[in-house]
């Protein structure tokens, strides 16, 4: 179960500004979904190893050789705002 304060806290963590209506709807919907999800708590999982990935791969490496990367112009082409050399954003201190 999740209350209004928790919804606002999680929204801050997720960098989402929710409207008043959204906060209210989200509180009910998330509580309902979590209520279903919590049924997995009935299982005895103490000795079970968690699976984060189904394919057993580790340390997939490629040769450490320099090669061309995306040209700066192409990387900046889709930016909402740029000064031609980098992405432009408001000052973090503003």
């Amino acid at each position: 179960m999740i209350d209004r304060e928790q919804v606002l806290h999680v929204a801050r963590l997720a960098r989402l500004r929710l409207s008043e209506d959204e906060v209210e709807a989200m509180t009910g919907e998330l509580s309902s979904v979590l209520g279903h999800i919590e049924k997995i708590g009935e299982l005895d999982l103490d000795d079970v190893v968690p699976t984060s990935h189904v394919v057993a791969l580790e340390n997939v490496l490629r040769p450490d050789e320099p090669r061309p990367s995306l040209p700066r112009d192409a990387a900046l082409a889709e930016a909402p705002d740029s000064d031609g050399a980098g992405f432009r954003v408001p000052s973090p201190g503003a």
Partner: protein
Amino acid sequence: MSEIVELTAAAAAERVRAGELSPGELWEAYRERAAADSLNAFLWLADDAPDVAADAPLGGVPLGVKDLFCTEGVPSAAASKILEGYRPPYTATAIELLARAGAPMLGKTNMDEFAMGSSNENSAFGAVRNPWDASRVPGGSSGGSAAAVAAGLAPWAIGTDTGGSIRQPASLCGIVGLKPTYGSISRYGMIAFASSLDQAGPLTRDVTDAALMLRHMVGRDECDSTSTGHPEEIALPSAERLDGIRFGVPPELTGEGLEPGVREVFETTLKRIEELGGTLQEVALPHSGHAISAYYVIAPAEASANLARFDGVRYGRRTERTETLLSLYEQTREEGFGPEVKRRIMLGTYALSSGYYDAYYGSAQRVRTKIAEDFRNAFDAVDLIVTPTSPSVAFGIGERVDDPWAMYLSDVLTVPMSLAGIPAISIPGGLSEGLPVGIQLAGPAFSENRILDAAHALELATGFDRSAARG
């Protein structure tokens, strides 16, 4: 409808190679059909017929491409407002491989925003209609791809499947959809939803076309370190019988919760399997009842991290309200994401947050281990598992939008295979009150050839008539 668009992709490619059909004629026939799309299946259409090498194995058969794939210079928005108008500087590996083999992109197909949904109603660009009944959903999230193939607007299409997003719309639209083994196809250029689950795959008119497309998609890619390629070449299926093949029927996925019409088609299919020489036996998947719960922790958790990149800085849409860097982030995301995407970001962020991580994410990953074990045990006793693909036929537009959990249960029969990373196909099994019912065949990792052969034999015996979906 012209005779050209009646051909399967394999048959059309064959005609091109035999010199009986030109790639240009083929392109024009589909370009015209797709431009007259009344289902909202396409979001963007290519203008020019591409050059295709005369001896290309796929003969210039045009491809519908889910909007989740990045395609260089072509709008790729994952059906989200936050990426509206975005034109990526590169093309996804799977699309590149298919284009090189002679399947050029016809257009981008509609989908649920960021592939989050089971009805295509979560698209920022409007719902897609089911060609069997325009008042119903085509399924999702690859709903535009499925509807376009079923209606003959595209000969075939590529989709992606995280928890059922290829198989469920294939089932609801009466076509074939295959989710390959995790890792067999590169995810490079697929806009990421849940990286440990996402996998590209074909949506086609028949099983042979699915095999043909898959053959040209698989491969290890150095741009995706989780890609493995496929240990064997994908063969075109030829089996007409199922002699000696052991089919497992899991009571957990074939018991309660199925619509009567779906159950009827499933039971007819089981009889058909026996008539073709296959054997049936019950197998247990004891943890599959918890699959949806585990999935709706794992997938949103991964999504909440993957979607952090959409912040209005490097690409996509930015809010006008940019007083501070924080308000730029928060307001851009508030304006750009739709309700279901926000819900999943919230769910995932909560499940990963301090104090809740072990209870939700840790437990869900342990359930995932048990589900994969269940399948391994089952495949000690049987060659393939057979279930319906979806517990219901296509439902009405608007019917499930107010109840997220009811919508999530649309994928109750497809999510277990996704969590285990194993391949599964949906093929049409018959009709229930005039609407298609899909049958799902699943096998162990990398058993695509076995699955395709069995699906081919079953398809021949079923003789499904999809002409009602062609306008």
